[in-house]
């Protein structure tokens, strides 16, 4: 499984756009990039997944360059409720069980 590297922590003011970059130099051809969000005292929650270029949903956008060695999670206009830990994972595609490897994640603190 490809290893990921992301910043340990980030601070942002309310209303700003936040970009969290993750590097995954050893990503395999069939791997997807997946992001999870975890609030204190809760289990992680899937927020977005992509393979290449750009993916957008109601929560976030995910930007993946052509070489796929990194990806950027973009959270538009953050609020205090976006304070959480964000995990970048590389996940093999295809059916079957798999082991998600959660690193330490990026602790995002949104400041009023």
């Amino acid at each position: 499984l490809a290893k990921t590297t992301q910043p340990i922590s980030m601070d942002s003011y309310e209303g700003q756009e936040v970009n969290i970059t993750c590097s995954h130099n050893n990503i395999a051809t069939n791997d997807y990039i997946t992001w999870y969000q975890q609030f204190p005292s809760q289990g992680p929650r899937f927020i977005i997944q992509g393979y290449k270029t750009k993916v957008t949903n109601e929560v976030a956008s995910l930007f993946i360059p052509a070489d796929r060695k990194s990806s950027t999670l973009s959270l538009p206009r953050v609020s205090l409720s976006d304070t959480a830990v964000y995990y970048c994972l590389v996940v093999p595609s295809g059916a079957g069980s798999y082991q998600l490897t959660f690193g330490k994640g990026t602790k995002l603190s949104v400041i009023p």
Partner: protein
Amino acid sequence: DAGITQSPRHKVTETGTPVTLRCHQTENHRYMYWYRQDPGHGLRLIHYSYGVKDTDKGEVSDGYSVSRSKTEDFLLTLESATSSQTSVYFCAISEIDNEQFFGPGTRLTVL
């Protein structure tokens, strides 16, 4: 939210006692997982199951065993609890796609 419950939600026990944590799902998902989360370590996979009576070890399986006799239940057993097993335990489920759904967690303290 995916129908996943964990029981108990909190437990305090003493070193050397057996402990069983239960994960129950109502989604009929094939795959089930047990993770532990400790400060400074993120989440680490203990065991997982890919069907009834089909289980395999994860990254930190020593000291833990699991059983899955029904699709909806996945049990995690600590045969003889140690203080190093004090942690928050999360159960997760998934189907053939890549998204895992996590339960609310069980906070276990071993004194």
